[in-house]
C-alpha cells in the first residue's frame, strides 16, 4: 500500500531532536503520519540543553501539497514545544512547493474565523429571526397580491395582452391532467364519509340520513377542500419549481432586460388558468364524491339509487352547492399566488428551488385551510 511507504521517526541526539521523515508524503498518507507523529513526540519538550529540532527530509521521495502542509504543521508543533525547527535536505522542486504551502498555511492560521455563537443565544436568535421573517413574508405576499390584482385589472381592460397560449397550456396541465387523480380521490372520500355515517347513524336507526351527511359534507366542504389541497401539492409546487428554475438560469433577469414584465408573463397566465380549472375540478370532484357516497349507500345500506336521489334532493339545495363552488376561485388564487411568489423568491441555487417548492406547498395548503375557516365563520354569521 502507498500509505505504508511514508514514515516518520524521532530521535534525540546530544544536541538536537532529529525527526527523520521519508517515503511518499502524499495526501493519502497524511492521516497515518499525523497519528504516528503525535505518538512520537507527545512527551518531547525542549530542555536538557536541546533546543533545536531538525526535520531530516532527504528521504522524501514524493511530496504533494497535503504532505507539505503536514511538514509545515509538524514544524509548527515542534516550535510550540520550544524547539527552533528547520527542515533539512529537501529537493529543489519540493522546496518550492513547501515554500508556497507555508505561505498559504501562515495566512490561514492568522486569519480570524468568526467564533460560534453561544448555543442559547443562537437558539433565541433563530426563533426571533423566524418570527421576523414570517411577518416580512406575509407583508411581501400581500404586496405581491396587490400587484397581481392591478395586473389582472389591466388584462381585463386589455385582454389581448394576455399570453393566451401559455394560459391554455396551464389549463391543460393543471386541469385536464389532474382529472383522474382528483376524480379517484373524491370518489374515495365519498365512500369513506358514507361508511362513517352509516356505521354511526345505524345505532339510531337513522341510516337514511347518511345521504344528507354525504350531500352536505361533500358539496359544502370536502369536494373543494380535497381538490384544492391536491392542486396545491400538484400545481402550486410545479409553478414554484418552473419559475424557480428560470430564476436560477437567469431567464427572469433576461426577461426584465428586454422589457418584459415577469409577473405579467409568468404569473398571470398561471393565476388565470388555475382560477378557471379549480372551479371546474371542484364541480367534477363534487359529482364524484356524491357518486362515491351513492355507491357505498347502495352497497351497504339497502338504499336504492332512486331513494338516494330523492333523499339527496330534500337534503341539499342550490345554496349548499354554491357555498362549495364560491370558495374554489378564491382557493385557486391563493394557491397560484403562493406558488408563483415562492418561485420568484428563489435565489441562485438548486437547493433554494427545493426549499421554496416545499414552502409553497406548505403555505398553499395552510392558507387554503385558513381561508376555508374564514368562509365558515362568515357563512355562520350570514346564517347560511
Amino acid at each position: 500500500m502507498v500509505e505504508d511507504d511514508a514514515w516518520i521517526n524521532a530521535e534525540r541526539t546530544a544536541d538536537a531532536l532529529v525527526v527523520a521523515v521519508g517515503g511518499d508524503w502524499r495526501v493519502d498518507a497524511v492521516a497515518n503520519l499525523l497519528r504516528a507523529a503525535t505518538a512520537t513526540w507527545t512527551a518531547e519538550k525542549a530542555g536538557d540543553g536541546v533546543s533545536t529540532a531538525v526535520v531530516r527530509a532527504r528521504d522524501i521521495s514524493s511530496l504533494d501539497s497535503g504532505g507539505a502542509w503536514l511538514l509545515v504543521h509538524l514544524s509548527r508543533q515542534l516550535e510550540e514545544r520550544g524547539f527552533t525547527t528547520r527542515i533539512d535536505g529537501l529537493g529543489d522542486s519540493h522546496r518550492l512547493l513547501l515554500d508556497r504551502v507555508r505561505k498559504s498555511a501562515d495566512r490561514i492560521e492568522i486569519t480570524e474565523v468568526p467564533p460560534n455563537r453561544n448555543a442559547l443565544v443562537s437558539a433565541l436568535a433563530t426563533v426571533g429571526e423566524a418570527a421576523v421573517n414570517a411577518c416580512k413574508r406575509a407583508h411581501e405576499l400581500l404586496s405581491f397580491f396587490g400587484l397581481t390584482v392591478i395586473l389582472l385589472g389591466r388584462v381585463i381592460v386589455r385582454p389581448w395582452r394576455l399570453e393566451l397560449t401559455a394560459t391554455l397550456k396551464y389549463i391543460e396541465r393543471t386541469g385536464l391532467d389532474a382529472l383522474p387523480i382528483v376524480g379517484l380521490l373524491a370518489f374515495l372520500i365519498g365512500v369513506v364519509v358514507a361508511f362513517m355515517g352509516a356505521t354511526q347513524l345505524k345505532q339510531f336507526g337513522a341510516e337514511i340520513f347518511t345521504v344528507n351527511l354525504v350531500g352536505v359534507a361533500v358539496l359544502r366542504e370536502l369536494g373543494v377542500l380535497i381538490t384544492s389541497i391536491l392542486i396545491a401539492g400538484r400545481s402550486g409546487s410545479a409553478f414554484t419549481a418552473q419559475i424557480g428554475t428560470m430564476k436560477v438560469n437567469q431567464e427572469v433577469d433576461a426577461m426584465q432586460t428586454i422589457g418584459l414584465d415577469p409577473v405579467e408573463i409568468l404569473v398571470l397566465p398561471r393565476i388565470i388558468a388555475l382560477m378557471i380549472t379549480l372551479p371546474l375540478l371542484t364541480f367534477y370532484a363534487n359529482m364524484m364524491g356524491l357518486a362515491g357516497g351513492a355507491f357505498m349507500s347502495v352497497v351497504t345500506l339497502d338504499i336504492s339509487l332512486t331513494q338516494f336521489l330523492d333523499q339527496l334532493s330534500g337534503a341539499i339545495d342550490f345554496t349548499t352547492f354554491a357555498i362549495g363552488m364560491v370558495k374554489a376561485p378564491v382557493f385557486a388564487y391563493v394557491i397560484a399566488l403562493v406558488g408563483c411568489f415562492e418561485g420568484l423568491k428563489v435565489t441562485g441555487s438548486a437547493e433554494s428551488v427545493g426549499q421554496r417548492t416545499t414552502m409553497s406547498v406548505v403555505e398553499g395548503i395552510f392558507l387554503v385551510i385558513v381561508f376555508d375557516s374564514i368562509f365558515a365563520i362568515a357563512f355562520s354569521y350570514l346564517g347560511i
Partner: protein
Amino acid sequence: MDPGNVIEVRGLVNQFGTNRIHDGLDLDVHKGEVLGVVGGSGTGKSVLLRTIIGLNRARDGEIMVLGQDSRNLKGREARRLLRRWGVLFQDGALFSSLTVEQNIAVSMREHTRLPGHAINRLARLKIDMVGLPLHACSKYPSELSGGMRKRAGLARALALDPEIVFLDEPTAGLDPIGAADFDILIRDLQRSLGLTVFMVTHDLDSLVAITDRIAVLVDRKIKVGTVDELRMDDHPWIQDYFNGPRGRAAMASHGRD
C-alpha cells in the same frame, strides 16, 4: 504506453446521431506539460475532455490515462484512477448547496481518512493557494462572482493533489487582468505541484503564455505542435487562428513575433 505519456488517445471516434464529432483522433499528452486544446466552437473540445475522463462513451478507439484504460474500469480501480485527476468544468459546476470550503472537502472526505481538522486546514490551504480570500470559505457558490467561482472550481479540482488537471475554458468570462492572473496561477501551481494540465481554451493569450504544446481540433482530428510549429502549418483554419489579427497581437505581446 510510452512512459513519458500520461494520456494516450488512439483512433477515437465520437458520434451523436449522424453527427460525427471525432473521426480517428490520436493524441498524446506528456507528463508534466501544459497542453492547450483549441478549435472552433462546436468542434468537440468539451466532448473530447468528457470522453477522456469517462463521462462520455466513445463509439470506438482506445484511451489510456495514467497507464489504465479509463473506459473499462470498475469499482476500486475506477475510484483509484478518479482521484488521480481533477476537473474544472466549463461553468464551474460547484455544488450549489455546499459552501466553498465544503465543496473542496467533499473529495477529501470521500477518498481519505483524514481527521476533520486536517481536512479543514487542507481545504483552506487550497482556497488560499488559488488566490481566493479566506472569507470566501463560508460562502455559497451563488454568492461568488464568475471569476471567484472559477478559482473555487480549481481549488476543488486540486483538492486531492491530482496528477492531471483538466480545465475547460478556465479563463473564459474573466476580465483580461483576471485572466492573466489565472494563467500565472495555473502555471505556478503546475510547476510547484508538478501537474500535467489539459486545458481547453479560446484564449490566445493563455495559449501563448503558458502552454508547452497546442492541440488543434480541425477536420475531426487533432494536430499538435508548439506555437511556432503551428504557425507554419498551412491548414486554413490554423493559419487564420494564429496569423489572424488577434493571434498576431497575442504573439507580439509575448515577444514572439
